[in-house]
């Protein structure tokens, strides 16, 4: 029987759908084996036809998202959480820190660019209480994080889903594909807010720049450090951060960074906590992260979120 694929797009940016199209020739060989029956960017199909594989992009933010997700789960055999938003909530997960009213207020009424506007209540679907990753509503068969996931991992992941005996994906971190040299330095100063270093061949951590490569799962082939920009952790936590409750993004990173550049661990941790909105941006609304006993995102985010 031919494999049929159905895709859906929730609160996301469509980038993950574009990543699917980015399979290029692989898409053609995929199409020989599979038929796409529903896809918002490729096919004009409004219903939810039955499919063997369902691919969902984006987090659940509005009532429409929830409806579409439940429909998808009903109509497909195997569901893939595609992209960081579907797996961890993604950047819009910052909404987890604030109440629905605070979010609407900032977007439509009190925001600096729309003084005195009105909230759309008839035109747009109402918002859910908070941003949540899709597995809080339905069972997921495969998680493919990444912003977007690299076509190499997409192809491997989908093959693994179709046939469990095929080789699967690696659990390496972004460092595994990064070509920079990690060297121990001393007397390096922490460089807050820097994303690019002086030495194009030296690891960012050795230069005192916070790079999340070592605490991020490799689903991207490290494009950012290769062109000179520090990793922002878009594919979500690495396996050890994900599975060990007492290991956390900031503790793991500070441990390695202290050994590589000699900056005291406490200084690095304080800096990460102060800018938690940036460093935890992609996986903030996932229970895998906010339920960790050491993660106090609301505390770090300041009084407006705690209220």
């Amino acid at each position, binding site marked *: 029987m031919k494999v049929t694929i159905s895709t859906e797009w929730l609160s996301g940016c469509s980038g993950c759908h574009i990543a699917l199209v980015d399979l290029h020739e692989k898409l053609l060989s995929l199409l020989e084996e599979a038929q796409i029956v529903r896809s918002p960017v490729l096919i004009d199909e409004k219903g939810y036809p039955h499919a063997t594989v369902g691919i969902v992009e984006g987090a659940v933010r509005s009532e429409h998202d929830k409806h579409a997700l439940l429909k998808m789960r009903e109509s497909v055999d195997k569901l893939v959480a595609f992209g960081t938003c579907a*797996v961890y909530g993604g950047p819009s997960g910052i909404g*987890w*820190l*604030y*109440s*629905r009213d605070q979010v609407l207020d900032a977007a439509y009424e009190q925001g600096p660019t729309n003084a005195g506007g009105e909230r759309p209540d008839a035109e747009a679907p109402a918002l*859910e*209480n*908070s941003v*949540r990753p899709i*597995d809080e509503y339905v069972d*997921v*068969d*495969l*998680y*493919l*994080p990444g912003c977007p996931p690299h076509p190499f991992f997409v192809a*491997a*992941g989908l093959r*693994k*889903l179709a046939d469990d005996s095929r*080789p*699967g*994906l*690696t*659990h*390496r*971190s972004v*460092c*595994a*594909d*990064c070509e*920079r*040299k*990690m*060297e*121990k330095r001393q007397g390096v100063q922490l460089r807050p807010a820097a994303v690019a270093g002086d030495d194009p061949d030296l*690891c960012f*951590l050795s230069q005192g720049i916070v790079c999340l*490569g*070592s605490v991020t*799962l490799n689903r991207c082939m490290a494009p950012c450090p290769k062109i000179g920009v520090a990793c922002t952790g878009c594919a979500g936590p*690495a*396996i*050890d951060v*994900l*599975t*060990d*409750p*007492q*290991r956390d993004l900031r503790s793991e990173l500070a*441990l*390695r960074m202290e*050994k*590589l550049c000699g900056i005291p661990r406490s200084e690095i941790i304080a800096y990460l906590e102060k800018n938690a909105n940036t460093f935890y941006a992609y996986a903030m609304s996932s*229970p*895998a992260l*906010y*339920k*960790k006993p050491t993660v106090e995102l609301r505390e770090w985010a300041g009084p407006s979120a705690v209220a």
Partner: protein
Amino acid sequence: MVTIRVDEKACVGCALCVDECPTDVFTFDEKKRLPVVEKPEMCFGCLSCSKICPADAIEHEGIKVSTNFYHDAYALNMAAKLGLAEELETGVTSEEADRKRAVDDLGIRLLSIASVLRQTLGNALPAVGRMAGTTLAAQLPRYQMPASFDEAIQVVRDSLNPAWIIGETTRSNESLKLKVEGCFVRDLCKKEGLELGGDLCILFGTYLLGYLGKVTKSRLRLMNTAQGWKECTYDLEVHT
């Protein structure tokens, strides 16, 4: 015999594993910028090297991974479904027997902690329970903060399951009758042959009330309570 594999393609040559290993299993090949597994027989499977490795490039075969009980089931499920090529060395199974052992293990400790708390705090024990419950409720995700009293009861019911299974609740004006059908403290008492209503019972009873009070945003006064092997009932006075 332990086999240690270093994924040479993934290794970044930081040599942190060489520094970290307590038994000096590794040496560093400066020319190739790769660690060399020199004395694998010295490895006792602490996994320090594997944990410090920025690229997660070190794997062990033939070690006994200790079972720890504190892993989050949600995260483990997610890790299992990332489509990985090999199984992870978390040392955890989600089998029923393992979970039972975890509860037993923790239960004995809780009983002794409760009796020590009683000895040192005396009559302040209920206040400690309440405070702990209130603190936990304050950490509830924002979206779970309920709008109405009934919704609040449902949130408490969902979030405390399966430690407590809350049965029927009847509310009239200012009084609330709460039935607790399942309770992990009761199971523990049964197993250890203890009387109901002991220190741990008081500690977690008040914990439950502190939690309930914070979620329902009301002050709860305990009027009467009855413990039983089937269910416990709490008569409460509610001030909103």
